[in-house]
């Protein structure tokens, strides 16, 4: 089909949402379900435009709500299709029962979640609380920092989710507004190159799918021991996903010239005495601040979390061991703990990392910019704690603390 021929590799200035859509098209999904929500709508609208123009040959299902969006792709995936859907905020939680089901069925669904605050109809603004609300759903969750990384991460997501050693749904997250509508110069790979990158999936043994006329069933999880066994297999698959993600990232680098460090990305951490950990669009700002602080003689490094589920336990432990103090900057809240969720999880690694001052910073809720001065202050706080001064374990920068 001529229409499916993609343009030559090109550099274009496109938004984060468009980058996601371009990546999805390059991965040739069979079934796409579409439902609008700000700041995601542009993803599905762009895909629909591709479809209307004949450059995306997929079944497009314009559902009546996100719950159906998720069930459609789960069902289609269990029937052997490559699938895609996108959502955000309330949309994500409206599909929550289906999200749990998709994970339980080990359906390799690829979904974009454009991070947005959930409560209040006017909370049309950035925040990672939606992703956090689904952290225990059994999905793989990854987070992009830039528009290029969104595009690359979606392509990697298919390679990871559909790997027979993994077979799990994956949620590609990026900050709403900051990245969804940010236009950056992006390199769009050639169709043939992406086909080649995903081709090894076809050489793997076929995954079990539902077929007409067979007596196969899907969804009877069984009771007692049978159920527990499936849960343990699910856990084991999540465990394997960590190393696989590093591998996929490296293979992507070899094919396309861009790789991102796998589960985490360490920036100027080699000789760092203190570390700032964060994720998403704040990372770019943080890098600038780290450079400035380094120039001023502060031995600070930055760890960017790219994979949040499964949690990068080993690589994070390695990156954080032997430091004098660590700060974690979260764009969401761990209710019941009064701290940020990523901080909470890193704190659970204390036995491995060792007891050093560990500081939680909550910022960037509801579209409040995480500015350079904010991050400078974060680094200063971590530095003071490293020098033995008293410190506040949780700081709500978002409320002016």
């Amino acid at each position, binding site marked *: 089909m001529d229409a499916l021929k993609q343009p030559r590799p090109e550099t274009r200035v496109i938004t984060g949402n468009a980058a996601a859509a371009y990546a999805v098209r390059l991965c040739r999904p*069979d*079934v796409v*379900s579409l439902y609008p929500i700000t700041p995601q709508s542009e993803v599905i609208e762009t895909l629909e435009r591709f479809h209307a123009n004949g450059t995306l040959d*997929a*079944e497009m*299902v*314009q*559902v*009546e*709500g996100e*719950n*159906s*969006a*998720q*069930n*459609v*792709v*789960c*069902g*289609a*995936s*269990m*029937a*052997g*299709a490559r*699938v895609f859907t996108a959502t955000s905020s309330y949309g994500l939680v409206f599909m929550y*029962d*289906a999200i749990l*089901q998709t994970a339980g069925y080990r359906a390799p669904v690829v979904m974009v979640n454009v991070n947005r605050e959930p409560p209040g109809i006017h909370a049309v603004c950035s925040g990672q609380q939606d992703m956090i609300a689904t952290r225990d759903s059994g999905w793989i969750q990854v987070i992009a920092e830039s528009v290029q990384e969104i595009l690359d991460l979606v392509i990697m997501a298919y390679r990871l989710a559909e790997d027979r050693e993994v077979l799990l749904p994956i949620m590609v997250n990026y900050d709403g507004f900051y990245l969804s509508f940010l236009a950056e110069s992006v390199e769009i790979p050639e169709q043939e190159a992406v086909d080649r990158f995903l081709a090894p999936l076809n050489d793997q043994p076929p995954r079990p799918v*539902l*077929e*007409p*006329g*067979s*007596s*196969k*069933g*899907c*969804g*009877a999880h*069984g*009771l007692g021991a049978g159920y527990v066994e499936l849960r343990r297999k699910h856990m084991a698959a999540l465990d394997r996903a960590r190393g696989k993600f590093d591998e996929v990232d490296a293979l992507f680098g070899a094919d396309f010239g861009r790789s991102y460090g796998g589960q985490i990305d360490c920036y100027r951490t080699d000789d760092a005495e203190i570390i700032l950990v964060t994720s998403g669009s704040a990372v770019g700002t943080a890098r600038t601040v780290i450079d400035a602080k380094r120039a001023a003689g502060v031995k600070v490094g930055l760890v960017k979390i790219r994979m949040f589920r499964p949690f990068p336990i080993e690589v994070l432990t390695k990156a954080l061991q032997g430091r004098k103090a660590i700060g974690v900057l979260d764009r969401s809240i761990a209710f019941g703990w009064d701290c940020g969720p990523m901080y909470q999880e890193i704190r659970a690694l204390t036995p491995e990392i060792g007891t050093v001052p560990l500081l939680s910073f909550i910022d960037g809720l509801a579209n409040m910019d995480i500015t350079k001065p904010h991050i400078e202050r974060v680094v200063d706080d971590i530095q003071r704690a490293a020098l033995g001064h008293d410190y506040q374990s949780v700081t709500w920068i978002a409320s002016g603390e």
Partner: protein
Amino acid sequence: MTTTETVTRFKKLPKVTQYYKNEDQFTPGVAFCSGCTLEHNVRFVSRVLGKDAIFVGTPSCSAPVLNGANDGAWHRHAHYACTMTGVASSATGLRRAFLKAGKDATIVCFTGDGCAMDVGFQPLSGAAERNEKIIYICYDNEGYMNTGIQRSSGTPLGASTSTTQVGSTGQGKSTGSKNMPMVMAMHDIPFVATATLSHLDDYAKKLDKAREFCKEGFVYLHVFTPCNVGWKTPTDASIEVCRAAVKTNYFPLWEADHGRFRMTYKTKKPHPVEDLTSLLGKFKHLDGAQLAALQAQVDKRFHVLQSLCAGFTEGE
């Protein structure tokens, strides 16, 4: 009745068996209460639609059989179990995947009224609006039976359930049921029909049409399926109850084939609705006023149906 008696009795096979495509795909011993028409219903659907049909089902009384957890007793259909909220949408996903792969498939959603008319209604309505090429069969036992006989929007006026109880102030359900087959007919889909288990020829013909029409778009069948436990009837009364529902016009048999409404069974002289309610324990508390209200609702709904049918017979 012993097996030999059955064989002697059916020396000549009943007419309806001509619609059977295959042997019973269900083993004996499936987990329904004795006398439950749901078992009859699902076995019948399977025989008429054929063994390639893929069932999509939910938590419900049919779940243990359709979707597992019924150790030892089973069926040979491909099946997909999902949440109550995800039936029509999951079926959509399966169907679209098969379409994309160029595979033929008859996808049959088989759920209770609680799923179809309440918590799974939005996806059902959405799939109908999109005219997905699937069959949706709602077996209407007029309540949430699997969870202990609670009210659903299929529960009729006055019926006693565990969430619409009868007591010194409670008088059963205070509102009528949703006229679900009519609601679905208003979605303008290729085929909508009602059916029940006392009129199997009629049901079989409709299933045959369903198999054909689902190649073109959405098909909805609403099947009156008495639950002897929840309705408080003897185990051998279920078919009699179905017949009474038809004869009283409480559950008329009709179809809308591409929007052309037609009665598929005509009751010459409708019986009063009391002929049905008197059979059912769930109605035994009804007083004169409640009975009159139920009768009025039955009459009104039948009148609407008749005028819809008349619109198409006049010109013929």
